[in-house]
Structures are given as structure tokens and as C-alpha cells.
């Protein structure tokens, strides 16, 4: 080294069988000098001499020669080494902070820890059904698939268990499980599979149409972006099964998220992120991580929500790093919730503190986070939010209590259920009770059955019980039949006139109102259909809520009308429509519709239309 400048290497060094990291004396000296610094180096003058400089050479000159020597030595020392098969650095700096819980539910399908039990090995149908109701998202997904596998080969299963399991799968309404439910129903065979197949065919048709438009969009400048063009429910229908989309459409979605399409603005990217919340597609991880690494809090939060629901090893490190660097309360709460999906509960103490925040949006985010990181000790903190004046907070509190699964809150939930008049809220509480009981069952606890009060009958229903005079019933039925005839031959105005007469004669009879609503809905006359649906709901709400077809049509009508209003810039009206339909018990409506209504409600709530 002394007195010479390093020669640039002219060819690759010979293969070196020294273990990686082993230095020559020369390199070791230079590395040490760079590590400790000249000011701390006791033999500074000696270093100058070693570098071929006078003992009192200026620091600047020493630094210049030192780094050149060190870099040159490094290049000469680079090797390909048969033993160097791994990155010499240690692995991850930190590991997920796991909940210390040895219960069956905590161990079922856990990703980390020696005590994990694979759900794929569980054979007991009753256990699987309980996990499906009360487990975490990843557990519910795995339980649903495992349950359908067991039913596909039902040897050794009791017939009542098979029937109960089939019914359970059929009744899964969870929007987070749309993809798994479709797979499960296909496996079951019979009428379940036929429904699922029809559904699948519709989805494939939509996917092909969108695929062709995506190709045209990239190949021909100036075409509108095809995903943004879809009606909300169709977009949700397409994206909730993103895992089956062709690579080209997924790459297109990734380009939109990354802002590589040259068109989508921040608001559109945010709306797309919201629509991808339940996509669960690992192919989107790179693009979602790009958004997560960005600097726009609203986009970061949406990306975190979508990422947390994807089962992929790249998700945890990205969320963990984002959580550690985040300083915005609401964003940090959402990141804590997303980490909770991966089993990491590090955010629990932080979000507990946020429950006392003066900002309602922060409180809501904290409640949402406790859904995944909360424990039984949190139920007392969450229960007071059941009386919150904001319905969004009340709904979230019920969902959080459902996932915490503490049986002590059941009487309180019953009490709230008894006093609410909003059927959607009642439905939410029903689901929460089922989830809590399932968790208690898995924990070996006794589930206390509380006698339910008599079913609440609304005033309009009572009106139906009053018998109309026979002549009125006869005439209105005749009008109803004639109206149907007009409808059959497509003369809708005359048909509606007859239905109106029938409804006027018997104000408590819902049938003419329903048929008018359906007729307008099928003609995409959303405003007229909406009015008829409103009257039908007023007369007999449960008739609409209990019928999957009517429930779907009503939800779609309200959604489409809200979209029309939004396009006209009448955001308040649109928001009112969405809130109105969300007060109904829509559990029988398709998941894509319910998801899109919830997403749009949130978007309209922040004045950010699609």
C-alpha cells in the first residue's frame, strides 16, 4: 500500500475459497480506519505514512487517499466463492410481536410459532364451522375451504353435520369471504354448484370484456380507463375475485395504483384502492407496497387495508416498517390493524390510547384496529361505543366486539339489539353474537342462551294484519292481474296505472308496489324504481329484506341512483341514498353490492366521489 495509488483491476479476481468476510491485513486496516475515523485513530501519523503521505498532510488529502485505497482494496477483494451461498448479513432485524395465547383458536392456522396447528389437518366439521364464524380473517378463509373439502368427501360424517355444514356455507354473507365461498360452493355440487357456476360464468364474461378493453386502452392512446368506467357493483364483483383475474388485468390494476397510466389522479387511485380492499391477490403486493412507501396518508391507509388481507410473506416487513416510521395517529392505527391481520399485535397498546382521542376519525380507526389486535381485556373499553351517536362508530364497535369474542358482552349486545329500530344494526349484532358464541365454543366455555324478546314488528306490518273489505281485495287483485298482463306485453304505463290502483285500494298490500319497483329496476329507471321500493319498504320492510332477489334489486337501485346523483354533483343526495339503503338488513344481497355500498358510503362521507 505504501506510497502508491491503487491500480484499477483489469480482470476478475481469481476464485477465492476464503470464507466471505475474511479480510487481508491491508483491507482490515483500511476498513478499521474508516470505521473509527481519523480523529479517533491513535496512529494517525502512521496512517499518513502508510498511505504515502507526509506525517502532517492535511486531513482532506488523507481522506481522499484513504477512500481511494479502501475502495480499490475492496474491488480487488471481491470474490465469487463457492461457500458464499447466503447473504452474509443477519436476517430480519425484528420479528412479529405475537399474542401470547395458547388457546386452540390462537394456534389454529397461526403463521408463526411451534405450537401452530394447520387448519388443513382439522377434520371435525363442528370445529371448522365454529372457526368459520368466530376466527380471524385468515382462519375463516382456511376453515371455509377445509369445510368444503371435508364435505366433498363426507365419509365418516354424520348426516346432520353434513346438512348443518352445507347450510353454514350457503349462508356465509361475509364480504371478506366472497372468493372462498365461491370455491367452496363449486366443490359442494348440486344446487350450490349450479348457482356458483352461473355466478362464475357471469364473472368470466365480465373479466373477458374488461380484458379486451384493457388491451385496447394500452394499445390505443386516448381510450377511457375501463375499470373506472364500470358501474360500482360490477367493479366490486370483478375485483373481489381478483385472484382469478388474468395477469394482464392485474398488471393493469398495478399500473393504475402506481400512477403509471398517465391518467388516474389521486382521487381515482384512492377509489381503486378502496375497491381492492378484499381482493387478497398476492400479485398486487408490489404495487401496494409502492403506495405504502409513498407520502400520501389517505393512499397509505387504503394500501395498508388491502395489504393486511393478503396472505404473502412480503406483507409483514412492509407493514412493520410503515408502522414504525408513521407518526400520523389515524394512519398508524390503520397500519396497526393491518399488522394485526398478519398476527402481529405490536400496535395494541398504541391504539388503546387512541380510543380517548378527541378526533372522531382517530377513534373510529382505533376501534377498527382493535378488531385485529384487541383482546378480551379490551371489551370494556369498546362497549361504551355501542351508545355513540355516530352510527358508523356503533357498527364498528359491534364488529370489534365480535372479533374480540368476549362472552361477557353478550347481555349488553342483547340489550342494544332490543332497543334498536335499525334492521341493519340488528343484523350486525346477530352476526356478532354468533361469532362470540363460536369463540366461546372453541374455548370450551358454556354459551349462555338468552331468551330473545318477541320479534319486533314494525307498524306498517301491523297495518297489513287489518283485513280489507272483500270487495276492495277483489278489485285490487283484479287490477293487479290486469297490470301483470300489461306488463307481460311490455305496456308499462298501463301496467303501472293498474298497480297503483291496486295499491290505493289496499294500502297494506305490498305486492303491487314490489312488482312496480322490480319492473322499473329491470328497465334501469332507477328514480322510479327507488320511489316504489321506498313505498314497499314502508309497507313491509321484512319482505324486501328476506328475499334475496328483492334485497339485491333494492340495493342495486339505490346504488345506481346514488351514482347518478354523484355524477350530477349532488353529493348530499347521493350520500343520503346510500345511508338510507345501508340501514336495511342487506345480508341477503350479494356481497359485491354490500361492499360497494359500504365503500361508497365511506367515499361520500369524505366528499370524495369516484
Amino acid at each position, binding site marked *: 500500500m505504501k506510497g502508491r495509488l491503487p491500480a484499477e483491476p483489469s480482470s*476478475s*479476481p481469481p476464485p477465492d475459497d476464503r470464507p466471505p468476510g475474511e479480510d487481508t491485513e491491508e483491507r482490515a486496516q483500511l476498513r478499521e480506519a474508516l470505521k473509527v475515523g481519523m480523529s479517533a485513530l491513535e496512529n494517525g501519523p502512521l496512517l499518513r505514512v502508510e498511505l504515502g503521505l507526509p506525517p502532517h498532510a492535511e486531513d*482532506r488529502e488523507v481522506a481522499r487517499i484513504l477512500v481511494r485505497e479502501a475502495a480499490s482494496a*475492496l474491488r480487488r477483494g471481491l470474490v465469487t466463492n463457492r461457500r458464499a451461498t447466503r447473504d452474509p448479513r443477519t436476517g430480519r432485524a425484528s420479528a412479529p410481536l405475537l399474542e401470547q395465547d395458547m388457546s386452540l383458536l390462537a394456534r389454529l392456522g397461526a403463521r408463526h410459532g411451534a405450537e401452530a396447528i394447520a387448519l388443513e389437518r382439522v377434520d371435525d366439521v363442528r370445529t371448522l364451522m365454529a372457526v368459520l364464524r368466530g376466527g380471524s380473517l385468515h382462519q375463516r378463509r382456511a376453515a371455509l375451504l377445509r369445510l368444503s373439502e371435508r364435505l366433498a368427501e363426507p365419509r365418516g360424517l354424520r348426516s346432520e353435520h353434513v346438512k348443518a355444514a352445507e347450510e353454514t356455507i350457503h349462508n356465509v354473507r361475509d364480504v371478506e369471504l366472497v372468493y372462498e365461498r365461491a370455491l367452496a360452493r363449486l366443490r359442494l355440487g348440486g344446487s350450490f354448484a349450479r348457482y356458483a357456476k352461473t355466478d362464475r360464468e357471469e364473472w368470466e364474461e365480465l373479466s373477458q370484456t374488461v380484458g379486451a378493453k384493457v*388491451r385496447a386502452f*394500452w394499445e390505443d392512446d386516448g381510450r377511457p380507463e375501463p375499470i373506472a368506467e364500470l358501474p360500482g357493483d360490477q367493479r366490486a364483483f370483478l375485483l373481489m375475485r381478483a385472484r382469478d383475474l388474468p395477469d394482464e388485468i392485474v*398488471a393493469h390494476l398495478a399500473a393504475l395504483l402506481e400512477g403509471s397510466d398517465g391518467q388516474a389522479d389521486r382521487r381515482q387511485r384512492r377509489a381503486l384502492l378502496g375497491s381492492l380492499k378484499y381482493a387478497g391477490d398476492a400479485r398486487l403486493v408490489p404495487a401496494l407496497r409502492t403506495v405504502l412507501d409513498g407520502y400520501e396518508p389517505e393512499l397509505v391507509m387504503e394500501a395498508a387495508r388491502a395489504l393486511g388481507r393478503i396472505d404473502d410473506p*412480503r406483507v409483514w416487513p412492509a407493514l412493520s416498517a410503515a408502522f414504525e416510521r408513521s407518526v400520523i395517529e389515524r394512519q398508524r392505527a390503520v397500519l396497526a390493524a393491518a399488522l394485526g391481520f398478519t398476527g402481529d399485535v405490536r400496535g395494541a397498546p398504541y391504539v388503546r390510547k387512541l380510543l380517548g382521542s378527541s378526533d372522531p376519525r382517530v377513534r373510529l380507526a382505533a376501534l377498527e384496529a382493535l378488531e385485529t389486535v384487541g383482546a378480551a381485556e379490551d371489551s370494556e373499553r369498546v362497549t361504551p361505543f355501542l351508545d355513540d351517536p355516530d352510527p358508523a362508530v356503533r357498527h364498528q364497535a359491534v364488529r370489534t366486539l365480535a372479533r374480540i369474542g368476549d362472552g361477557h358482552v353478550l347481555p349488553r349486545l342483547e340489550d342494544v339489539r332490543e332497543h334498536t329500530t335499525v334492521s341493519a344494526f340488528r343484523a350486525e349484532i346477530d352476526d356478532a353474537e354468533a361469532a362470540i358464541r363460536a369463540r366461546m365454543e372453541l374455548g370450551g366455555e358454556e354459551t349462555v342462551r338468552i331468551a330473545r324478546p318477541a320479534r319486533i314488528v314494525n307498524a306498517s306490518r301491523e297495518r297489513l294484519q287489518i283485513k280489507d273489505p272483500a270487495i276492495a281485495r277483489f278489485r285490487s287483485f283484479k287490477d293487479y292481474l290486469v297490470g301483470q298482463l300489461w306488463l307481460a306485453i311490455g305496456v308499462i304505463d298501463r301496467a303501472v296505472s293498474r298497480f297503483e290502483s291496486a295499491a290505493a285500494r289496499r294500502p297494506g298490500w305490498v305486492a303491487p308496489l314490489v312488482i312496480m319497483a322490480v319492473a322499473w329496476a329491470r328497465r334501469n329507471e332507477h328514480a322510479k324504481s327507488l320511489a316504489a321500493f321506498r313505498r314497499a319498504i314502508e309497507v313491509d320492510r321484512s319482505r324486501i329484506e328476506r328475499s334475496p332477489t328483492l334485497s339485491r334489486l333494492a340495493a342495486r337501485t339505490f346504488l345506481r341512483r346514488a351514482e347518478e346523483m354523484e355524477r350530477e354533483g349532488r353529493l348530499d343526495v347521493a350520500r343520503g341514498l346510500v345511508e338510507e339503503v345501508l340501514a336495511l338488513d342487506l345480508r341477503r344481497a350479494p356481497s359485491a353490492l354490500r361492499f360497494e355500498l359500504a365503500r361508497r358510503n365511506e367515499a361520500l362521507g369524505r366528499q370524495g366521489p369516484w
Partner: protein
Amino acid sequence: MVKDLRREVRRRLASGAMGVEGVRIDRAVFDVTIDGRAELVTVALRNGELVCTSTDGQPDGPHAMAALRLLAGQSLAGTTKVIASPGAYALMGDVAEDAIARDPEGPRVTPAGPLARVRPELSLPPAGMRTLSTSERPSSVARESLAEVLEDLVTAIVRLGLRNAQGSPSLEEAFERLAGVAPQPLPLGIARFIGRLRGALATNDVDQLAELLDGAVRLAGDLRRAHPSEEGRRRIVGWLGPTADQPEDIESLTDRTFVEVGREWVTGVERASIERRYLVELGSGEIFREERPRLLPGISVGPCPRQLHVGLAEAAEGPPPRRIRLLQYTLSDTIRPETFARLEELSVRSHRALLDSYVHAIGDYPGLVEPFVLVGPARATGEAIALANVDDEGWPLPIVRADEGEAEWLDRLAMERPIVGIAGRLIDVTRTLLLVPVSVLVQDEEGLRLVRVR
């Protein structure tokens, strides 16, 4: 200029030096300068229709009209300067005039979109190396001040040492001075250097620190020279981009097909603030990079992976992968199986050869170069990729495991299906060459496909 060009073309045609029999040329590219502003104009015949696009996005703007007038044999305004391939001009002249004459409404110009895409059909020879006009260059650099600040930065770090440097006030001040004296907006070379230097300090990576500081010292030396060597000039341009007193040599690329094999966000002055896209040119196999600061325009559109048919692009000189600017292109999100097969063919199969080129690259451009490669592992399935990424001679190229999630995902993928190629950035850690994977080429039931890692 135009008269000279025309005379030269006629002379050469008359001499019979250019055999044109059986050749059909459908497109010509012109570099038109009007009042100091240079634009590239492409004139093409598409299905008999004349298409004209210009890099200023105005198909009927002055630059485009100058090119059309030239083709029609009309005279040009006094200050207009046109540079074109002489052969292209001569051969296109009659064709274009015929096309214009046939149309009763006169020349019809198809409007191009803001991206000025055209569909290339037949190659023209590249226009060769081109120097950007003065108006396109950033302001000149205070070379002496920048050299001074760089040397101060190096001295501050060497005085403090790696262990004490991070977060020290003197170092922060040196960073601020560097950002202050560098050209504005901050060149991506400098931004990336600051990001990497902060990273080396944060992770106590003494080897990377040495390389980066060596780069800074070399740049300072080059800046101080009134007439730097050719390598020095390239280094200056690589760090600072073209400047008024240090122009950049640009190679025009025409009619090439590229495949984007990966994209990533790397740290600049701020975290994840520079977007990079890596494009493989299918003919030569050379890998290029598109680069931009976060969410700023100036980069092509499209998903990843994608196939691009580039009518015109500019490749800058500098460290590999060379920086490219796509000016006219069409793209497809569908990549044909033979394209994937070509990528597999192009992948490097000798890890020792990679090391050789890596050492050369960091020797030429220390602190600046970040080589990107497509490697074809001989064995990368049935076991964890980290243990199996070896070449035909059995030399491994370990996968970086700094992001344990990515490494685990890759291991899982390798267990499920054969990995036939890995695209990634080369780095060295503790004397060992490592690969930062960005995407992988996998074989599944439907054939080869490219999967993004990040």
C-alpha cells in the same frame, strides 16, 4: 443547411452509392431546430396515410410543418435547422410528395396524443450520436464549489468515522451544502448518492461507504479539471446530467423492441423517491433504465411487465444500465411466449463473468453505478432459491436477504415451480457479490411468465 443536405443527397444518389432496389421506407425522423428549440419530428406512411408526430406534441406545429415542407421540396424559413439521415430524406422525398399530391385536401396530418406514439414498421439506420442543443440543458454548475463541498463531505466522514458519523451536525451540514450547491432540480445521480450514503451510514456498511466516498472524490477531481478526460466527462454527466458546459452524448435508438422486466423505487434524498424501470432490448440484450423522481412526469406509461415497440428513443451515455428516454413508442401488455423465450436466452449464465463486469463497472463509476442483470440460474427449484441460485459451473450468486419477506416469498416460489431467470440489481456485501431480485421468470403450466418480486 437544407440546400447542402439536398445537394449532398443528390450527389450520393447520382453516384449510385446507395442501392435502393426492393427497399421500401415508410418512416423518416428529423431533428428540427427553430429559434433554438429542437424537436424530433417523425413522418411516416401508415396504410397510405401520412402521419406526422413531433416531440412537442403539435402535429401541425412549426417543427412538424418544417419537416413536411422539407419532404415536399419546399423552402424553409431562415432560422430553421433540420438534421436528418440523408438517405431517409432522399428516399422519402418522392413517396411523400406522391402521398400529398393524391390527397385533394392537401397534406393530412394525423394528430398524435400527448405521448406522441407512432407505430414503427421498418427500420431506418440510427441517426447516430447527437448533442442536445443548449436550450435543453440545465444551468451550468458551480464546478469549483461543488468539488469543494464534496471533498468537505468526504473529509467530515473520514474524520468522524462510520461509527460516529450518522446524525452528526457537521455531516448534516455537509449534506445541506451539497444539496445547496448542486444544480436544481437536484440531479438524480446526486440524490441517489445521498440516499445510498445515508443507507451505508445507517447500516454500518463500511465497504459501501468506501465505494461511495471514492466516487465523490473522483467526481471532485473531475470537476476541478478544466478539461477532464473522456471517462471524467462521462462521470460528470452521470452524476449531474447534461449541463451547459458539459453536454451529454445521446445515442438515438430507432425501431427497437424492449421488454420491461422490473421496476423499483429506490432511496434518494428521501425514502423511495426515485422510480426506476428496467428495459431489456431484445435485439442486443442490453438493459436500459428509465428513471424519474416520485410522481413527476417524464417517463413512459404502461404496466409491468410490458412489451414496447420503440420508434424513437434516446439513450444517454453513462454507467450501466444506461438511462433511456422513450420518445415515440407503442406498447402491449401482452407478451408473447417467444419474447419470454428470448429473455431466457439473453440471461447471463456465468456468475464469474458477472463479477468481472461488476468490478469493471464500479471501478469506472464508483458510487454511481448500480448494475442490473438478468441471470439464468442452472438450478433454482425444489429447494430454497437462496441455496440454489448457482450457474452452470456451480458458482452461486446469493440472493439478498435484507428483506426477509421477499426472500421467503422467493424461496416458496422456487419450491412450487422452476425459476428460469432472475432480474435484479447487483450489490456487494462483505466481499460477496449479491443479487437484489426485482422480478423472476418462472415456468408454469401455461409457459414462461414474468413475476414481480417488488
